[in-house]
């Protein structure tokens, strides 16, 4: 029932909304949470519990409420006591069948003896072969909502991320957090104040007139100070060097935003959480904490029940009695726990009907309010080094400030009690000290000590009840765990799963420890506690994944590719044309006429300086000292373990000027590699490295008519084979563009020129080549055709025909590697590889049935059926009209003419013979020298 307007209410009575709960329409006001709206209409049950499917209602009426987790539309696990109502919201209960009111799985409770502590560990161990069936059954019992298969952007708005560098970050926007933030901001420090609720104020929001007045004043001071306030946001973790993760929710068009903040100082002021009490029936709908009823009445003007019994051990509990009476609830009895009062059991399953107190007293009621103590949510402090210590006088844990990292300071209820004035004075001093440690001020601020109120130790009564409301773990389960030897909190936690549910120990940890302490005859301090780890609050995977940002690279010729039907191929960071519809015809064009290939992604490093030859001699396995100006050479790089790392050609453009190319995927790694040798091993060498991969657009013009075509577009380069021979380089103008580099190389096996033109003119030159060569039959050629051409020529691809174990001599590089060179990277291992022999080798395989193209990765087997290698590259060759493939084979089978068997994926075997040469087309290399 909705009450008359309350002084501190947050609902907007002028805004009438409606939502649907399990199909039925309910009214709501602006500012209502899902639970406050439903409770105002008299609903009491919002979920079924995890194991026994017991009906559950409001317990804390806050984000942590374990009984108020629902499905909203296709968003699962929404905290219904926190999420604000939006018009037309579709809300359903989770994991209930056929309905919330009548849930079949509630029968679990009748077979409760089958679900004791450690049930899964005990029951599903043997026989192991049955685990798949167990898993299928257990999955049906998993708790939680239904995940949508659709990307979240479509329904929720994007996930997002942000970096922030405030001087001071204050976690918690209650009175202490607000005072600390204001005090820090007044020193000139930039301050970020993060509050989990929808508004600043903490417990003052549901307090009395004096509290509300204090809150209004604090809010004014926050508004006046330059503080960045984030509400509906929570600090989920504190990591090394004060990296602080904040999840911000409920923004317009952004569902959740992960803020990675790096404050100089972190002030931790989360306040205190009220602790549930353990007794029989303590999870019945209608049993609530005092803060829950105060929130329902004062924030949402909701009458939480008709007849109430209150168990109070503190002034906040007494204040709840006043609130209840003011709301017109009939408080039939107040049981004072400070004078030995207690609750024996709550009666009623789908809703509280009566309460039994000691001495056989019994009261009919529909609301039982408990106020038995407070828990320090020590999470963030623990992440900063704190080991909280239990104080029996106050019945709660306190931080050990001396263990905290110097850039983390606690304030508010986690360190002590006191009036609002005392708390804000203390927090103000903490805020100033936090700012000083961030560099604002010089003299250390004296932080006053907060008083600590004494509080009776109340954890559980004389009957057994639920300890962990999320995981349905009872105090009886904990005793079972102790009896079976799991008496240490960390073990009992894992054995019973207590503290491992969505509230992550915030409500239940201290009760768990207290029950274990009692069962083992130790004190709470001796028993210790479990470790609080990040995240402090549950984080969605969407928030962690953030917005999908993966930049891709296109060559300057991409508009032409796109307009001419190029099929895209994602190759590392690049998107390249795989083919233009007919790769076989593209191969034919290169073999018979002329083709142009966009090879822009090839890595390019501009090397300058007198010591470039030393660098090349060091990083390549072959010799480089005598490379003349105007010449190009192919080289292979091996790592220090002798494994093939990258390959490419390098040209000498001038006396002290070289252009190195690398594989497309290796461009970044080779640059780092070269820099590593220059910076760490040879800092005295004078070499300057500039990456120019994207400064040039690169076009390979290949085919018997390549010279004719290139001649039509170059202005000042002599192409005559006598002057510009194979493996030479020239610079000049191409299609009117100055500063182009042309080299005559031939990985396709045909006469070819590779043109590197300033990137801005890439498309221009590409189109000029196609325009100028119409009568020559010029054709654009994609990556697939390039791979076929290379394979026909027997050129290995690093990473395809080699892997992480392929030493240089296993890659068919015997002729290239110069072990007589004094030193180069990988020389020692290559020397030993050549001395030892016995290494696998890269060979070409000719299948007897040459119409078969074995899949890449097919195994090669020897006579005895043993695996002796694999196919590394294979394609149908349009030139030879047969399958061609390369493979790695064991040394003893690498001799040309040796027979091996290729085992196909379908189990068939194909006999094959090791060929003489790696190249299947033009092994003598006549064509490319033409």
């Amino acid at each position: 029932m909705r009450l008359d307007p309350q002084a501190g209410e947050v609902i907007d009575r002028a805004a009438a909304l409606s939502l649907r709960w399990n199909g039925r329409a309910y009214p709501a006001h602006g500012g209502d949470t899902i639970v406050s709206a439903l409770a105002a209409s008299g609903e009491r049950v919002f979920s079924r519990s995890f194991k026994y499917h017991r009906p559950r209602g409001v317990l804390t009426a806050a984000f942590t409420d374990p009984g108020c987790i629902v499905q909203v539309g296709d968003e699962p696990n929404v905290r219904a006591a926190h999420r604000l109502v939006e018009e037309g919201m579709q809300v359903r209960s989770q994991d209930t069948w056929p309905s919330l009111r009548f849930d079949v799985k509630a029968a679990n409770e009748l077979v409760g003896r089958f679900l004791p502590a450690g049930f899964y560990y005990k029951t599903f161990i043997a026989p192991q072969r049955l685990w798949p069936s167990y898993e299928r059954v257990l999955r049906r019992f998993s708790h939680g909502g239904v995940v949508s298969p659709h990307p979240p952007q479509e329904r929720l708005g994007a996930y997002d991320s942000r970096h922030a560098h405030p001087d001071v970050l204050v976690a918690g926007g209650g009175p202490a957090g607000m005072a600390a933030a204001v005090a820090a901001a007044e020193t000139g420090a930039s301050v970020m104040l993060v509050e989990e609720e929808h508004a600043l104020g903490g417990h003052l929001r549901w307090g009395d007139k004096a509290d509300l007045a204090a809150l209004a004043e604090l809010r004014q001071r926050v508004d006046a100070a330059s503080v960045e306030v984030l509400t509906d946001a929570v600090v989920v973790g504190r990591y090394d060097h004060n990296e602080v993760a904040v999840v911000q929710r409920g923004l317009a068009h952004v569902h959740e935003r992960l803020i990675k903040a790096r404050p100089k100082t972190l002030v931790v002021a989360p306040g205190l959480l009220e602790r549930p009490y353990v007794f029989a029936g303590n999870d019945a709908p209608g049993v609530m904490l005092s803060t829950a009823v105060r929130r329902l009445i004062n924030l949402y003007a909701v009458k939480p029940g008709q007849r109430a019994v209150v168990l109070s051990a503190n002034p906040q509990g007494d204040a709840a009695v006043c609130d209840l009476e003011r709301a017109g609830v009939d408080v039939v009895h107040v049981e004072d726990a400070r004078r030995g009062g207690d609750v024996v059991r709550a009666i009623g399953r789908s809703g509280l009907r009566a309460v039994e107190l000691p001495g056989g007293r019994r009261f009919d009621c529909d609301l039982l309010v408990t106020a038995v103590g407070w828990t320090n949510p020590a999470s963030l402090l623990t992440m900063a080094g704190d080991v909280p210590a239990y104080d029996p006088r106050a019945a709660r844990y306190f931080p050990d400030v001396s263990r905290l990292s110097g850039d983390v300071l606690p304030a508010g209820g986690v360190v002590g009690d006191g009036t609002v004035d005392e708390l804000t004075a203390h927090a103000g001093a903490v805020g100033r000290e936090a700012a000083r440690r961030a560099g604002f001020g010089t003299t250390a601020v004296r932080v006053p000590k907060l008083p600590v109120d004494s509080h009776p130790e109340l954890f559980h009564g004389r009957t057994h009840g639920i300890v962990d409301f999320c995981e349905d773990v009872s105090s009886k389960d904990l005793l079972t765990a102790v009896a079976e030897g799991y008496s240490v909190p960390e073990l009992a936690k894992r054995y019973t799963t207590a503290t491992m549910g969505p509230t992550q120990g915030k409500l239940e940890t201290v009760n768990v420890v207290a029950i274990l302490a009692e069962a083992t005859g130790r004190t709470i301090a001796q028993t210790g506690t479990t470790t609080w780890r990040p995240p402090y609050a549950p984080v969605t995977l969407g928030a962690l994944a953030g917005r999908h940002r993966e930049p891709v690279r296109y060559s300057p010729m991409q508009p032409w590719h796109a307009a001419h039907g190029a099929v895209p191929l994602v190759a590392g960071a690049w998107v390249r044309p795989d083919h233009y519809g007919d790769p076989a015809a593209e191969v034919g064009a290169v073999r018979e006429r002329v083709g142009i290939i966009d090879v822009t992604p090839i890595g390019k490093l501009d090397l300058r300086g007198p010591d470039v030859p030393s660098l090349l001699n060091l990083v390549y396995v072959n010799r480089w000292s005598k490379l003349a100006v105007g010449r190009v050479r192919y080289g292979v790089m091996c790592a220090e373990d002798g494994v093939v790392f990258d390959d490419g050609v390098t040209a000498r453009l001038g006396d002290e000027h070289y252009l190195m190319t690398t594989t497309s995927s290796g461009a970044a790694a080779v640059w780092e590699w070269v820099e590593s040798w220059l910076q760490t091993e040879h800092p005295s060498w004078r070499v300057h490295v500039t990456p120019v991969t994207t400064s040039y657009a690169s076009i390979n013009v290949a085919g018997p008519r390549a010279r004719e075509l290139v001649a039509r577009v170059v202005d000042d380069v002599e192409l005559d084979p006598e002057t510009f021979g194979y493996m030479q380089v020239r610079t000049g103008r191409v299609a009117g563009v100055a500063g182009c580099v042309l080299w005559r190389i031939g990985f396709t096996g045909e006469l070819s020129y590779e043109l590197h033109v300033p990137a801005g003119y890439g498309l221009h030159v590409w189109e000029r080549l196609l325009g100028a060569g119409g009568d020559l039959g010029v054709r654009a050629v994609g990556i697939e055709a390039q791979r076929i051409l290379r394979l026909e020529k027997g050129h290995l691809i690093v990473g395809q025909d080699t892997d992480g174990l392929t030493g240089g001599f296993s890659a068919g590089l015997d002729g290239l590697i110069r072990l007589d060179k004094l030193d180069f990277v990988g020389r020692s291992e290559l020397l030993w590889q050549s001395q030892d022999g016995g290494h696998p080798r890269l060979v070409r395989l000719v299948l007897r049935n040459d119409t078969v193209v074995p899949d890449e990765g097919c195994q090669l087997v020897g006579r005895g059926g043993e695996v002796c290698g694999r196919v590394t590259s294979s394609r149908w060759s349009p030139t030879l009209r047969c399958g061609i493939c390369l493979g790695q084979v064991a040394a003893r089978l690498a001799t040309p003419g040796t027979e091996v068997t290729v085992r196909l994926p379908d189990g068939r075997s194909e006999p094959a013979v090791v060929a003489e040469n790696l190249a299947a087309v033009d092994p003598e290399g006549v064509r490319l020298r033409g």
Partner: protein
Amino acid sequence: MILLPCPWCGHRDAGEFRYVGEGTRRPDPETATRQQWRDYLYLRANVAGWTTERWYHRMGCRRYLSLRRNTLTNEVAIGDGP
């Protein structure tokens, strides 16, 4: 993510760097035995405490740097190379 003090760029998030590894010395390839060479390639002390390690500031100045780091506490100090 820890902060690393780059001598050129100041304190930067470790995500900007590539962790190269514990500082090692390349043995003289002319005289190194196989054992010495493979120790250089594969053996690391993996100290629980202060260690010297190399990082590459790939998203910053692109310099390789040596740092001293306490692997237990992630305290970091600018230190000499190995």
